[in-house]
């Protein structure tokens, strides 16, 4: 991997002639102002040179006086971040779609359309993405002067129509309430026999409007709100937010505080991967593994509770430091717990790599090549299981990750079994890191003083959550409330993978395929995507179907 400076220089030369002005707001960032008409040329130049992946697209309302909306396209390569800044008028603004180059842009562009009213030309589906059905037209919740409460009052019924049979196609509806889903989402799978020929997803059942709420509360209140974006990776959200705000304020937490944050993040990764192991195994019909892994997960929960006083939503980080210390009694309890976890993880690693009945459900399911995974913009263990070494903790170490480095776990198989293996090996790696942190925990205070008002500026904070890269964009305006907080969670980037891989799969493989990315609905909030089969509807004769069934089961 090239160094940050080299990467930024390369990006600058690739974009030469297109930019209307460049700036370097932070050492690892390059801002390039471009016209909407040059957007395709700019993204093509970067993508053509294999420079980075599209992390997200942030819309910012610049207010009534400026009468403009700024769309920020964040592309990341290692630690380097290039932001393409496109300004469009507040009314009737339009940008071209970059969907053809970055498939996951579809999600971000639909969000830009419904939240800011910017038209994205060339997008096939322009229906609601985050907002409920029946949200009044022409009301954009993230524009500063929109009366969202009045708009919300106008929303009436929000039920999707019953799909049933469409000609000779049969649609299997799943959710929003379904035994396989712990969280609400509505899926429609068009099936031909056992073969899935089309997949649609409608999320939005958990959309609460957190980004808007962040603009109305002060920085301290927002800490507790961002922590509740997701109850499973709550520390990741709080930590990504805190890192960003501290950068804006020019405050640095003490080494001890940062080490404790990393310690909690490692514990959270283990509990999240154990949780996932159980749920994903359950989807594949392996309920015993759910019971065993959740029993062992309680070891981590006990440790977290002993340290922080809560099993979930631990509130470990505060602005400027951490809330609690790690005493020698805690350290002893953690070491004791980690010995047990290590033993159990090795056992589960053995199970997921050798159990015949398990492998027959996991091997060869949802296979992704390295190139495909990179092009789709996948993140986290799903990406690393396809052989791409991309991990924020390694590429762009934050906090104490320079002092206590982490090894990225990669597997080249790219199937569901590889996703199990990568997550279990990550849990083992976390155990190792926890021990090194406890051995070398720096001395010092837990908190430093944090100003109430944060100086004007903007920053990007990236954090490797258990599910992949978490991306926070925070813009401050000199007051005690942020101007804009953009949260991009890893699950949203991985949805495209499920929809692409579901088409052509057996219906029975869909639940483990879905669980394979570890989707977190409350994180990624709400989506609608329609993925039509790539080669039209596949029609099979009875004989072909029979042969396919035989070859499939012989595997």
């Amino acid at each position: 991997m090239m160094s940050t400076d080299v990467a930024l220089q390369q990006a600058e030369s690739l974009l030469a002639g297109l930019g209307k002005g460049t700036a370097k707001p932070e050492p690892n960032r390059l801002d390039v102002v471009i016209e909407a008409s040059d957007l395709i040329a700019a993204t093509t130049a970067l993508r053509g040179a294999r420079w980075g992946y599209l992390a997200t697209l942030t819309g910012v309302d610049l207010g009534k006086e400026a009468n403009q909306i700024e769309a920020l396209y964040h592309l990341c390569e290692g630690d380097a971040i290039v932001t393409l800044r496109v300004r469009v008028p507040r009314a009737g603004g339009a940008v071209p779609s970059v969907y053809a180059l970055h498939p996951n842009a579809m999600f971000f562009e639909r969000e830009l359309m419904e939240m800011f009213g910017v038209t994205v030309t060339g997008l096939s589906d322009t229906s609601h993405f985050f907002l409920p059905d029946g949200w009044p037209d022409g009301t954009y919740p993230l524009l500063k002067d929109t009366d969202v409460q009045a708009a919300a009052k106008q929303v009436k019924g929000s039920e999707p129509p019953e799909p049933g049979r469409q000609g000779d196609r049969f649609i299997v509806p799943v959710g929003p309430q379904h035994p396989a889903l712990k969280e609400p989402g509505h899926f429609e799978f068009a099936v031909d026999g056992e073969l899935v020929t089309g997949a649609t997803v409608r999320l939005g059942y958990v959309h609460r409007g957190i980004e808007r709420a962040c603009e109305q509360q002060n920085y301290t209140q927002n800490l507790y709100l961002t922590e509740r974006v997701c109850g499973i990776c709550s520390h990741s959200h709080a930590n990504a937010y805190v890192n960003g705000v501290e950068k804006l304020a020019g405050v640095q937490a003490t080494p001890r505080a940062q080490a404790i944050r990393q310690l909690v993040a490692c514990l959270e990764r283990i509990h999240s991967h154990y949780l996932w192991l159980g749920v994903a195994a359950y989807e594949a019909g392996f309920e015993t593994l759910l019971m065993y892994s959740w029993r062992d997960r309680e070891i981590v929960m006990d440790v977290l509770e002993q340290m922080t006083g809560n099993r979930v939503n631990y509130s470990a980080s505060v602005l400027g430091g951490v809330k609690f210390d790690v005493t020698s009694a805690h350290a002893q309890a953690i070491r004791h717990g980690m010995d047990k976890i290590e033993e159990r993880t090795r056992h589960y690693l053995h199970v997921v790599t050798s159990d015949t009945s398990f492998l027959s459900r996991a091997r060869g399911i949802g296979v992704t090549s390295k190139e495909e995974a990179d092009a789709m913009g996948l993140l986290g263990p799903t990406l690393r299981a396809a052989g791409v070494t991309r991990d924020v903790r390694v590429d762009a170490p934050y906090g104490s990750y320079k002092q206590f480095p982490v090894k990225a776990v990669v597997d080249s198989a790219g199937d569901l079994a590889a996703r199990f293996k990568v997550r279990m090996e990550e849990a083992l790696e976390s155990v190792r890191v926890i021990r090194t942190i406890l051995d070398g925990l720096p001395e010092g205070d837990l908190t430093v003083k944090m100003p109430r008002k944060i100086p004007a500026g903007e920053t990007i904070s990236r954090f490797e959550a258990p599910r992949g890269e978490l991306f926070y964009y925070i813009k401050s305006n000199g007051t005690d409330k942020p101007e804009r907080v953009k949260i991009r969670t890893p699950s949203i980037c991985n949805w495209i993978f499920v929809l692409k891989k579901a088409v052509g799969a057996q219906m029975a493989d869909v639940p483990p395929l879905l669980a394979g990315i570890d989707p977190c609905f409350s994180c990624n909030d709400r989506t609608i995507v329609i993925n039509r089969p790539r080669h039209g509807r596949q029609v099979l004769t009875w004989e072909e179907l029979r042969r396919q069934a035989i070859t499939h089961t012989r595997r």
Partner: protein
Amino acid sequence: MSVQADSIWSEALEKIKTWARVNSPWILHYNSGSCNGCDIEIVATITPRYDLERFGIKLQGSPRHADVLICTGPVTLQSRDRLKRIYEQMPDPKFVVAVGSCATSGGVFQGCYSVVGHIDEVIPVNAYIPGCPPRPEAIIDGVVKLLTSLLPAKAKK
């Protein structure tokens, strides 16, 4: 004579029904906008450490088979109608348990534009279990309290 026999029969039948209801409630879980914190604690209650199933409780999938609806999270605009529909699909007698601060009061999401409010603004609630999220022990305690309240008064301690 026959009137009296009928009442004895129906009384006995009522007793049997209550006995059956208290000893094997089937539970349906619906997340109407929760952050997942309460949901993972609900799953934790049915796993070996806490083992809610020892009370005859079974977590299952269809509203039409459910006696108790466990709700988590504030109610979002998009899930409001679905929550009502699930409640209406459940056969009588039915009970609703609101788990967590958001389900009982809206929690930190009060005032968010896509949030309607807490569960009892949409459907009637029988038991509230506060906490962010409530511990598995608290969830078990709430469910057991609800079940005990169904027993006839004399059987209560």
